[in-house]
């Protein structure tokens, strides 16, 4: 799923969400990431959802142990975010869209 005008430059986000089948966790994560993308990355993201049951070899290739795992492919560096993505704050920190609380400039 891509946003309307996706341009491959340094500011654009390339995200992959790895899930194991369509469990409650999977559905939860998919819903959450879609919302977060629309809210925070409008116009500058592409998101791919991959079912590891369909493509099991990717689990080793991408170093996935926990599911769901969201991998930020771009911008570098690579980031792994695990869980159903219900904690939006944590997701944003993981994606480098928010500074961690301690680093916030008041």
């Amino acid at each position, binding site marked *: 799923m891509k946003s309307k005008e996706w341009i491959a430059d340094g500011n654009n986000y390339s995200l992959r969400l790895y899930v*194991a089948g369509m469990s409650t966790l999977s559905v*939860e994560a998919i819903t959450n990431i879609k919302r977060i993308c629309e809210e925070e990355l409008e116009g500058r993201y592409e998101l791919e959802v991959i079912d590891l049951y369909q493509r099991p070899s990717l*689990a080793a290739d991408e170093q996935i*142990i926990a*599911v769901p795992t969201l991998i930020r492919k771009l911008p570098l560096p690579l980031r*792994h975010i695990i*869980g159903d993505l*219900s904690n939006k704050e944590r997701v944003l920190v993981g994606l480098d869209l928010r500074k961690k609380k301690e680093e916030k400039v008041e």
Partner: protein
Amino acid sequence: MTKKLIVDHVHIEPMEIQETGEYNLEGLFIRLAYAIDSIGATRVVLDTMQTLLGRLSNPAIIRAELKRLFIWLKQKGVTSIITAETGKDSITRSGIEEYVTDCVLILDHRIVDQLSTRRIRIAKYRGSSHATNEYPFLINVDGIISVLPLSSLSLDHIAYEERIPSGIDELDEMLGGAGYYRGSSILISGTAGCGKSSIAAHFVDATCRRGEKCLVFLFEESPSQVLRNMRSIGLDLEQWVSNGNLKLLANRPTRYGLEKHLVQTIHEIEEHHPDVVVFDPISSFWRDDQSLEIEAMLARIVDYLKTKGITAMLLNLNSEGEYMEHTNSNVSSVIDTWLLLRNIEQNGQKNRNLYIVKSRGMSHSNKVREFKITNDGIQLSDVERV
């Protein structure tokens, strides 16, 4: 060539992870299943659980998934080996042994007197009885792991009927007329200079002369010293070294730890397949603070040799003034034949004598026999001198 081994590095980079809600480890399961299925693996090694447990921060999820993992592996029909770190109060730091149904092995590595000792213990083995003690083991340079042989401890040895000559005719007569039993253990003890090595040399000579093989472990003298000494009493052992029947191996007891000595000994025996093994002397190993372990090691060596049907001759140096029949009880209990040598001062001269303390399974002489070490070897006198 079909692929038989997959090594997968599961990398969890702590800096990269953010835990954002519920999750499980199904990714690991998928990965495992894929790897197992792709080569039809029957064995799986997970090394080490500690990494998994350390990097992910939700212990409840981890525990539940570990439990699920062990069940899953079983259902998958693979034999799996999982490594983990020991804890202070529990077998593993994270308590995963609770989920392990079949077998738990505990390894330990200690440094004692600058010598490292590794030990292994079976803590659990479902479905079968198992040895419960700790056993030393060694990782050799070629990677092979040697554990002290366990089968030896069952007292289940074959008792040979055959008798083999001691190399000294009169001594054979004392030994029920025929010599030692093949496969038995023989202890020769006495103070310094009593003639233990000479008695052993006769036995070695007789063995090699018969075409059998002999291995001698020397802990005090070098092979060339021994060959020279025996040549002076009329025994040419060099000829047996040349034709391959005799091998003399010298080593200082302090060079290795006890376990390594044991393993080296066994290794040499398995390489050379001797019929007779001589240890000259075992007393070199003795240290007061390690007497139990030394006794145990010797008992194990003797036991191992009996299992193999190899005749063992052990020489023991008693110190002056030591009560003559005192030899550590653990050792003497695995000994079948025990010769005691003494030097007695009489009328201003030193006389050598020997007698048989015990010799299982045969009627033996109880006489104290005087003997001399001459240029033609050991000669026993006819009559006991009072």
